[in-house]
């Protein structure tokens, strides 16, 4: 059993590496592996040292515009795609475990609706640019979780009520968002729609650290508490008899997942499906042990998003597709394939 996991882990990590390579060269502008290698390892050395030595000048053969495309556009974009895949997948896996609900996903508690409302407000009401879309979305996402917890009150300690409160908040904020979009200018509405369907296009280096930090801390906490989470997954009563503070732990996990999700949604918009399906796919592959599932979520979620980004940029020449559309389309097909092959084994 252990060797099987080992095998799957090696294969998927290799796939992740290959995905990174392909994400670097593919896109609306086709580059060669040589150009990318040259840019990342040779040209950058020239820039860092600033030495105009003849050898280095000869070896750095890439046009400055391509170098800039790789450094300023492509690298931040694919790193953001990777982080998004990782963050949403692990948040989804944890939420599915602590709520024991296979349909739980990071947007369960209305975060995407809250973030969308925040973004909409930032774009249309404060259109002067005082509040950036990212900040608006982050504030909105956090607001939705706080709102949900306040409205649910003590009910938040019970799983079913917690889930239902999330749904209610989601619908409530969604209604406001629709209302504002309905009354805004067509161009602003198109910005909002594109944002809501998700995109990595605007990712900058400076945007990466916050999601990376939140995901690392979250992942660490999930791993530290993995046995407790596992006990809750098996049933509240059992966990209770083991002396685990069930409700508190669930709330804390919910808040950590919400923070990860809110930070990501603020940067890249609402990208559905990943947080719901990648945990299931991981469980199909490696069983339900939480540490293995989390590991697979990181690897599969990350590579999945990298490919989604590649496809979003290269499916139609000279045009970008919203990431959310590609995610849902490929993801569902992928999932059906796995479901079928699993069915045959049973």
């Amino acid at each position, binding site marked *: 059993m252990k060797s099987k996991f080992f095998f799957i882990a090696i294969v998927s990590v290799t796939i992740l590496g290959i995905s990174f390579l392909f994400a670097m060269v593919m896109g609306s502008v086709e580059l060669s592996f040589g150009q990318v290698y040259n840019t990342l390892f040779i040209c950058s050395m020239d820039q860092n040292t600033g030495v105009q030595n003849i050898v280095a000048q000869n070896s750095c053969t890439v046009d400055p515009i391509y170098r800039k495309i790789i450094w300023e556009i492509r690298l931040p974009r694919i790193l953001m795609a990777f982080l998004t895949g990782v963050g949403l997948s692990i948040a989804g896996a944890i939420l599915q475990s602590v709520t024991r609900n296979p349909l739980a996903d990071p947007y369960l508690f209305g975060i995407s609706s809250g973030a969308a409302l925040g973004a909409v407000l930032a774009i249309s009401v404060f259109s002067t640019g005082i509040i950036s879309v990212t900040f608006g979305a982050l504030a909105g996402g956090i607001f939705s979780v706080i709102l949900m917890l306040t409205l649910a009150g003590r009910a938040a300690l019970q799983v079913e009520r917690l889930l239902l409160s999330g749904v209610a908040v989601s619908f409530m904020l969604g209604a406001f968002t629709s209302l504002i979009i309905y009354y805004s200018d067509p161009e602003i509405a*198109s*910005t909002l729609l594109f944002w809501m369907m998700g995109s990595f296009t605007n990712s900058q280096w400076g945007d990466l650290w916050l999601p990376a930090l939140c995901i690392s801390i979250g992942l660490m906490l999930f791993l530290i508490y993995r046995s407790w989470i596992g006990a809750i997954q098996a049933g509240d009563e059992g966990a209770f008899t083991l002396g685990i503070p069930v409700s508190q732990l669930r709330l804390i996990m919910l808040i950590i997942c919400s923070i990860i999700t809110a930070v990501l949604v603020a940067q890249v918009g609402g990208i559905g499906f990943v947080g719901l399906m990648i945990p299931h796919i991981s469980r199909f592959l490696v069983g339900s042990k939480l540490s293995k599932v989390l590991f697979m979520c990181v690897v599969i979620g990350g590579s999945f998003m990298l490919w989604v980004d590649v496809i979003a940029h290269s499916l139609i020449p000279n*045009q970008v597709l919203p990431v959310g559309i590609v995610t849902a389309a490929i993801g569902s097909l992928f999932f059906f394939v796995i479901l079928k092959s699993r069915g045959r084994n049973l």
Partner: protein
Amino acid sequence: MKRIFFTLAILIFIVSNKLSAENSLSKITNAQRIIALAPHSVELLYAIGAGDRIIATTEYSDYPKEALGIPRIGNANGIQIERVVEEKPDLVIVWEGGNKSADVLKLKSLGLNLFFTKPLKISDISQELKELGNLTGLSERADQVIEQMEKKHKQITNKYKRGSKVKTFYQLWHDPLTTIGPASWSESLLNDCNAENIFKDALSPYPVVPIESVLVKNPQVIIIPSHSGDDETKSKIWEKWSEISAVKNNHVNIIDGDLLHRFTPRVLDGLQKLCDAIDKAR
């Protein structure tokens, strides 16, 4: 079998309805109660002297100033159909692509006299002025407007005909970065200025494009039509890309979008500005 027959009957009914609607338009020679569901149509009617016959219009119909007094019965999100019927118009001007298609179908099914407008190039405006002239009995005035327009149009195109084609990026919107594709209104303007749309091979009329493609295509001029929102944020996205020839040589231009995107004689002022801006990069 019965079902097929039934479907056929409905189809025939729809087609005949459509034909009869088109036929009835040819009988109108002196429309007095006009509903214009597009800002540019309002402007065209004023231009030929039929502005006072407009009894209702949509939001954004703000030119000339008198147009602001016309009652509003809808916007891009929808038309209040009941109001249209209540006003008993003898002519309704519908904007294909601008008005909601469901609304247009409904208006059609109500048997109203619909005139469709969908200009894709400047000569389409002349054609439309001519048809509106016929419908309102103001052909003479319409012909005068057309003559002036065509003269001015010819002047502009002749002036820039010579010289090289200038590679131009037309930035319709910055987030998501949206431009114009082939067979769009704005591309016809670029062609009139002897400029080349760098996305002339795109698959849709208004494609969302990656910034990478713009960098590689290296436009000599970037045109930003201003509408809503902050113009500075729209041009700011280019600040760090000094490799692009348009940015390096300071040929990023913001031009009044109302002049460029309204299908009226005023577009020639916009065209003049557009061509001047492009010509500077030659």
